[in-house]
């Protein structure tokens, strides 16, 4: 029986397996309207039972998950300034329309004649994303950003192969997200590290030095992971193209550009979008997302199949794509996520999308201004949608970015992104997004300043944080030292 180790019940929710006891049920099935078949007979062997599987009542299920949910922080509770993650408000109307009966119950193999609505939704989204990025063609198949990266690099490889030589290397700035190199490796490329310059940006000279006939592509993030727009981006793409190499852009930071600049206009050949960032689909504790990939015309023939094809009066799926890299995922992509992204685009419209971008820039720069007197800034070029600080000043007093992050929890905020990008030693990466109000931003700035002072006056307070959560500092080292990855009786 789950004892009250701590007084309040919300202070010690047991695991389902501990609540479970034989015979309890939370379900009821309709009476079987056909003859019951004997499993052993029909299947040869049938399992006796699912050992240790939970047995709980319906009210226990709802209580268990409701109580557990109360241990979470979320956008619905407050600001979530994770740099590079674009944690913006997730409009609830998107959840509503994603549950439209005719869409949610559509089977991927049902006849095209009964799928026109679903295809229309995807077609609308494809053209909107093409317009927003200034690219020519779109695939909605990838399930997330990293998946989109893989798709993009495979597209590049396919094109180069078609040109006669897939080449060997992909250049990636040392500021890039880990998925970039991990992806290049899966696509069979060796990764060449590009050192960022004093502004944390790509150095055209350095790049020119690296590129040669073995270089397949550059994977660049713009704005980059220190929140700075690559001012030499046009030069950069020229350099690559002049060597017959291509430019992949990691679009995770697209929230800084929508409506003001388009990668297609500054030489990018292919990029992915994180619909679960820029286009507000909820992260859901880690997913699902969608990593739509947009490309220039020359890469279109290689896109994953099937492709939407417009007939005289209907949509159909075109599988006849001889040059395609194949499929990166079964069916057509995370359709439910695509619905939400289109709903977001429809709600904002052209002007609204640009306004959102401007507000995102405004909020990031407002925070930068508010706290730059208290934290070191490794790169001082103008910030776009996020601003990155380092803990150097605090580390000198023994307090690291991770500690400041934990203390921020006490002030009611989710921490910023900790120690990414790697080029910043002890990074504090802050992205407020456009959906935060000035009131919330001011509270955040207040908190950051208060903590900076605490670091000077009472570092222990910060080092031992958080103090206000039901769960104090969690021992991650212990977890990794002897992994317990499942409950056992």
């Amino acid at each position, binding site marked *: 029986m789950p004892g009250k180790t701590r007084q309040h019940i919300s202070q010690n929710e047991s695991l389902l397996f501990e609540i479970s006891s034989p015979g309890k*049920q939370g379900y009821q099935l309709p009476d079987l309207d056909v003859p019951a078949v004997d499993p052993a007979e029909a299947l040869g062997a049938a399992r006796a039972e699912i050992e240790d599987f939970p047995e709980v009542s319906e009210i226990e299920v709802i209580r268990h998950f409701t109580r557990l949910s109360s241990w979470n922080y979320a956008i*619905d509770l407050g600001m979530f300034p994770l740099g590079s993650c674009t944690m913006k408000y997730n409009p609830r109307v998107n959840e509503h329309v994603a549950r439209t009966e005719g869409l949610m119950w559509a089977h991927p193999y049902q006849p095209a004649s009964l799928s026109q609505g679903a295809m229309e939704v995807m077609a609308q989204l494809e053209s909107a994303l093409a317009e927003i990025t200034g690219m020519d063609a779109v695939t909605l198949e990838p399930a997330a950003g990293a998946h989109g990266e893989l798709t993009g690099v495979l597209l590049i490889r396919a094109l180069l192969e078609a040109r006669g030589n897939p080449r060997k290397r992909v250049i990636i700035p040392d500021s890039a997200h880990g998925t970039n190199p991990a992806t290049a490796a899966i696509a069979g490329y060796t990764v060449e590290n590009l050192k960022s310059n004093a502004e944390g940006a790509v150095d055209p000279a350095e790049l020119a030095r690296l590129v040669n006939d073995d270089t397949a592509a550059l994977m660049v993030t713009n704005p980059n992971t220190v929140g700075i727009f690559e001012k030499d981006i046009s030069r950069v793409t020229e350099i690559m193209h002049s060597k017959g190499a291509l430019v992949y852009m990691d679009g995770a930071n697209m929230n800084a550009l929508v409506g003001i600049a388009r990668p297609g206009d500054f030489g990018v050949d292919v990029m992915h979008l994180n619909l679960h960032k820029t286009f507000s689909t909820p992260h859901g504790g880690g997913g699902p997302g969608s990593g739509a990939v947009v490309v220039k015309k020359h890469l279109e023939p290689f896109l994953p199949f099937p492709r939407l094809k417009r007939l005289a009066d209907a949509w159909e799926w075109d599988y006849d794509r001889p040059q395609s890299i194949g499929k990166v995922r079964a069916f057509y*992509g995370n359709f439910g996520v695509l619905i939400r992204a289109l709903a977001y685009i429809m709600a904002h419209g052209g002007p609204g999308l640009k306004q959102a971008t401007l507000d995102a820039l405004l909020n990031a720069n407002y925070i930068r201004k508010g706290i730059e007197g208290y934290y070191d800034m490794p790169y001082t070029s103008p910030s776009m949608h996020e601003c990155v600080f380092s803990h150097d000043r605090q580390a000198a007093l023994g307090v690291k970015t991770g500690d400041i992050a934990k203390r921020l929890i006490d002030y009611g905020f989710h921490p910023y992104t900790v120690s990414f990008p790697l080029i910043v030693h002890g990074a504090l990466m802050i992205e407020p997004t456009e959906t935060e109000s000035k009131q919330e931003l001011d509270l955040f700035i207040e908190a950051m300043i208060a903590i900076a002072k605490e670091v000077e006056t009472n570092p222990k307070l910060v080092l031992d944080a958080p103090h206000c959560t039901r769960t104090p500092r*969690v021992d991650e080292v212990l977890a990794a030292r002897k992994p317990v990855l499942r409950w056992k009786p």
Partner: protein
Amino acid sequence: MLAAIGLNSLEDLYAHLPGEVLLNRPLDLPPGKSEYEIIDYFRRQGDRNAVGYASFLGAGAYAHFRPVLCDVVASRGEFLTSYTPYQAEMAQGTLTTIFEFQTMVCQLTGMDVANASMYDGSTAAPEAAMMAVRVTGRHKILASRGLHPEYRTVLGTYFRYEGGPVVEFGYDAATGQLDWADLESKLDGDTAAVLIQSPNFFGCIEDWKRAAELAHKHGALLVYMFSEAVSLGLLEPPRDADIVAGELQSFAHPPSYGGPYAGIIATREKFLRQLPGRLVGETKDSNGNRAFCLTLSTREQHIRREKATSNICTNQALIALMATVFMSVYGKEGLRELAHQNLSKAHYLASGLDRRFSAPFFNEFVVRTNGKTPEAINATLLEQKIAGGLPLGRFYPELSDCVLLCATEMSKREHMDTVRKAFL
């Protein structure tokens, strides 16, 4: 706020961008719409799809009843709008549910460890295969033609540059199960893994014990895959497999025109370090109370970069949560009864029809259309608001006179009778 940062206009915020990159026109998109119009729009699109049709389509996407609690829980903002639980102190809710998810997946599959989810079943195939390559140091992958055709295509896409070939082996024309001779003939010292699916794409139950023996005899791993998770309610857990990978869409998520779904990978303790994706582990907080956190991230891209076990970052957490609630609602008895209803309905649907294969099946099976074309049969069914089975010619030319039919607990007897009539 502008004043506070010393700017005069919002445009000043990007004045430092080089002129040539700027978009000097408004986006060519219509103005913003209201909630009312947006709901209206998607409602109209939905109505252009099949609404109110009984469906007998399976083939990797299954229409199962969704207990109301699944959406109730997954709609709570605390779950829906939270991020990956990197900050354990304010994410114990998500972390605990993932730990429960990992546990239930192990209980279902008979494996020791499971991760926090993959994109879907199709991408779980290459992830499992790449894992086998890392474990064995070998390069060749053997994939059954009974594995979902789209899974095989995805496997091929991922492996094109992995250095090793993906070789397919056939199925027994009579039983519909894998062709043992063909498999044996292709197994060799460079084979990293044998991928089978059970129930396979034809709905046939495979003999994983024998497949495991065979694979192990050649030092290869057996990867057991599934696309219909409900089958695990009745089928023997594939204990002899080295990796179990599959699709959990059947657990609480609607077909949703193909996604989002949730893939899983489970394996034996000893292969843990090669497992891709996120893992939640048990630990203690500074008060000594049980707590959970993400762990073993040294396998992952944000630490290992190009040497990571996978490039996956965002996964399918919320779908996995729905599946967790689904498994909790049905529980030990319910999942078995659910599977049993699927089994019984499918066998009722099959009775009297000319089944193409003789092997035992769960809730899907292949039938011959004898004379009529699959398309003709489906056309007549459509008129009666029934979406018939999947014509197999598209994926298996040799089976162009066959249809793959699926029945679930949602299939009503009268509709099944209509379908059966159409085949006679």
